[in-house]
């Protein structure tokens, strides 16, 4: 590994993170200066560490190898989460580092799982920082860096590929920098639009911004203990429902719409499947919960919000779905595993992977029956090569492995199976709430420090889709090459 280059890049990313804390500092200052010092100290520390790395490590060879791109992404997310945890420590919001780290990882990975059972007592700066990490982590810290720091080298595409979710990554424009800028531009405009609409629906500016950030990143942190349910505002719920689905959609569609492709842009297999699954799940859960809520309209209201929230891997809640009939609860857990679209801000296994696995299974069965028939697998009208199919299978295997491992390790804390399984699935898919002891009205605060670190790891693994973190355990990576 080219240590100088990797450390230099990490330094630059820390400097970017220092910049990312600035808005929270301003919010804290506007909030009567509460916690402003915590942010000031954190910014200074991140900036100092970043500059030291940049100054001390000047790479001679400036081009990344593919695996170094993965290493940078893996290390960056772990490191930036540590520095991002500082405001929680300095402000006293979290008493222990593992709590602060869990909260920050949960933020950056857009999980939205929290260790705080009460959040309304915190200053606005801290609340804003929590939600802002969602926004940055949703689209990606490295993609943001590519957009604002163009001189990261010709092979910076490795960084973007390692960070963006899904089996394949498609450039929208020839240059990575332009692609990153277009992505962030679409993202920012949609976030601002939602903020404005939420204000129209009656939410105050700060609450609207917090929930828009949480929805955009498909994160799920709220500034209210009862999440979106606290407002009991149907208009806001509908807005958030629609936008959760929209942010869980592959962003290539928005780019195509911008290019003026019109209705053609919507002919996207993955997106159609995503919405189809969503609608079917809403219908089924509405039927199943009508008795629980007493009337179909209320059931539809909560079912649609909750399905959008779980599928897009956001994790907001309007109602305690842990009290739903068993069938709906299990269905939600399955939706957790599926997750959102590739190329969106959501997590999970991703709809396109599920589709590819389904198609492979279908081909296998067809092949057994009619061995002479040649069948290929296509997605979006394009042939899918064996390499991609293979990596999808491997992804699934790794996902299941960590799901089982996490369930086992979480049970060390003596929680029931529903809790440990749903908490693990929720962390891996970056959702937030689970069932039972981690249900929407509960928090992760009661777990032991070790399990909290484990969940932090699972969230990072899920967000980065395993490989960038797992390569760190390959000994060849750490051998000095330059």
């Amino acid at each position, binding site marked *: 590994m080219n240590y100088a280059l990797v450390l230099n890049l990490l330094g630059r990313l820390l400097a970017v993170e220092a910049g990312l804390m600035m808005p929270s500092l301003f919010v804290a200052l506007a909030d009567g200066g509460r916690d402003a010092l915590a942010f000031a100290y954190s910014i200074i520390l991140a900036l100092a560490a970043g500059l030291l790395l940049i100054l001390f490590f000047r790479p001679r060879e400036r081009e990344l190898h593919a695996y170094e791109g993965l290493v940078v992404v893996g290390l960056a997310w772990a490191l930036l989460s540590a520095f991002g945890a500082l405001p929680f420590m300095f402000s006293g919001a979290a008493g222990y580092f593992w709590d602060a780290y869990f909260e920050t990882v949960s933020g950056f990975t857009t999980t939205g799982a929290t260790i705080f059972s009460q959040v309304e007592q915190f200053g606005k700066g801290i609340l804003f920082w929590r939600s802002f990490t969602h926004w940055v982590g949703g689209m990606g810290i490295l993609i943001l860096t590519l957009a604002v720091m163009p001189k990261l080298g*010709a092979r910076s595409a490795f960084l973007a590929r390692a960070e963006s979710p899904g089996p394949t990554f498609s450039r929208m424009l020839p240059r990575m920098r332009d692609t990153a800028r277009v992505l962030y531009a679409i993202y920012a405009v949609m976030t601002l639009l939602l903020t404005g609409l939420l204000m129209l629906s009656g939410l105050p500016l700060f609450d609207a911004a917090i929930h828009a950030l949480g929805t955009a990143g498909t994160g799920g942190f709220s500034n209210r203990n009862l999440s979106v349910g606290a407002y009991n505002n149907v208009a806001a719920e509908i807005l958030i429902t629609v936008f959760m689905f929209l942010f869980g959609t592959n962003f290539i569609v928005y780019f195509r719409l911008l290019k003026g492709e019109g209705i053609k842009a919507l002919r996207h297999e993955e997106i159609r499947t995503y919405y189809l699954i969503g609608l079917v799940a809403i219908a089924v859960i509405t039927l199943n919960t009508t008795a629980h809520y007493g009337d179909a309209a209320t059931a539809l209201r909560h079912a649609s919000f909750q399905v959008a929230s779980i599928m897009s891997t956001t994790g907001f809640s309007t109602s305690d779905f842990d009290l739903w009939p068993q069938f709906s609860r299990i269905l939600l857990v399955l939706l957790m595993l599926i997750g959102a679209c590739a190329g969106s801000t959501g997590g999970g296994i991703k709809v396109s992977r599920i589709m590819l696995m389904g198609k492979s299974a279908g081909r296998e069965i067809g092949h057994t029956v009619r061995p002479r028939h040649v069948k290929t697998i296509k997605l979006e009208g394009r042939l899918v090569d064996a390499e991609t199919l293979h990596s999808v299978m491997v992804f699934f295997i790794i996902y299941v492995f960590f799901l089982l491992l996490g369930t086992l390790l979480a049970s060390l804390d003596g929680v029931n199976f529903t809790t440990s399984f749903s908490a693990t699935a929720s962390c891996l898919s970056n959702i937030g709430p689970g069932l039972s002891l981690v249900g929407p009205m509960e928090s992760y605060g009661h777990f032991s420090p070790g399990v909290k670190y484990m969940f932090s790891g699972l969230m990072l693994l899920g967000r980065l889709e395993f490989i960038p973190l797992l390569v760190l355990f390959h000994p060849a990576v750490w051998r000095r090459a330059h």
Partner: protein
Amino acid sequence: MYIIIVGDGKVGHELASRLVAEEHEVAIVERSELVLQRNQDMLDAMYIKGNGVSVETLREAAIQRADIVIAVTVSDEVNMLVCLTAKRLGARYAIARIRDPEYNRSQRFLMEELLIDYILNPERTLAMEISRILRYPFAGGVETFAGGQVEMVDFRVAKPDGLAGMSLKAIARHKKHLPQVLVSAVERDGEAIIPKGDFVLREGDRVFVVSDTATITAFFKALGKNTISVQSAMIMGGSRIAFYLARILLETRMAVSIIEIDPEKAREMTDMLPEANIILGDGTDHELLMEEGLKKNDAFITLSGRDEDNIMAGFYAARNGVRKVVVKNNHENYNPILRLMGLDSAVSAKQVTSNTILRTVRTRSGAAGPNQVQRLYRLMDGKAEALEFNVGQTEPVIGIKLKDLWIKPDALVAVIVRNGKVHIPFGEDTLESGDRVIVIVRESGMNELGDIIRRH
């Protein structure tokens, strides 16, 4: 600029990487999944799988906003069609690589009817470069500027020159004995240096000198080099390049013999080149080379399909005292080693192709105003560049003494051509409208004179 390259072969990849380095937007269209997988993400460019002739693929590559389309697939016919389709779909400029000599004669027709703006025949271009090198048998390479009035020749400082240990100032003081050429760039230990007056030459330095043809010849004569031009040449390998080269050399009444191993090809060559001496045999066979009078030839050029054969045969010829040896070598990374071992003239079709295309791209960059670079040469495998500009009437630096202007560090105003006269400028000189200027820079990506010379 937005540039689409069709065909991700050797040349396509090389072009893409250089164009990306020059900050252009680049999209690459390639049919083979295998090639795509290997190359994807190595460059900051968009890769599109598909056939470059297909309208759908080209539309996916946003052809309507393409400034230049470069067709470099293996097939001449595909390249032609790519250009036609691309132009019809709105591309502004189309370059095609066409190698078959058959099409050579109908070049004008193709350009007009298929809307191709620039046709590149790499083999013929390479043959022309080799023929230029043969004009200065003591030099490693030659480039011409200003319509042939100015030449840049590189050579290696050796003991008998008497140049080693002299500073450039000292060389300039020898005016009486030494015709005045400008030392514009030096390669030492793999580093490119734009030298100042107190720079001291060392044995083994590769020196690039610039002046007009007569002065350069006189300069090398004064250094005691054998400047008699090459009278006879032996070519190993009857390739297309050999054919083009032999044709050029035969026109200058040179004696040319070609060694070809394949009887069928040898007969064809005899047909096409009746004045050349075609020998059937293996060019790597030393006995055969001796028998056919290798030592009597002034030049030995190895053009077979295998780089290793070319290099080894080249070494053998050089050992046996052939004055000028040129080897074709596509492995660019071997070149420094070859130079260390005494083979200064290594050429490659890939290099020539990408250099020529890049030059075309560069001259089309921006608004193609009068201050745009006219010609561009890459020196020392791209570590430095020589650029030729025309000084326009509106150029803000006109009439100001060079010493009073800001000149980019590591850049050198090498030559001014005024009224057909070649002139090596000093601090007191000025640029005037209508001048042609040749500038040497150590950085790549300069498009305008204003990038290099400005008012303070």
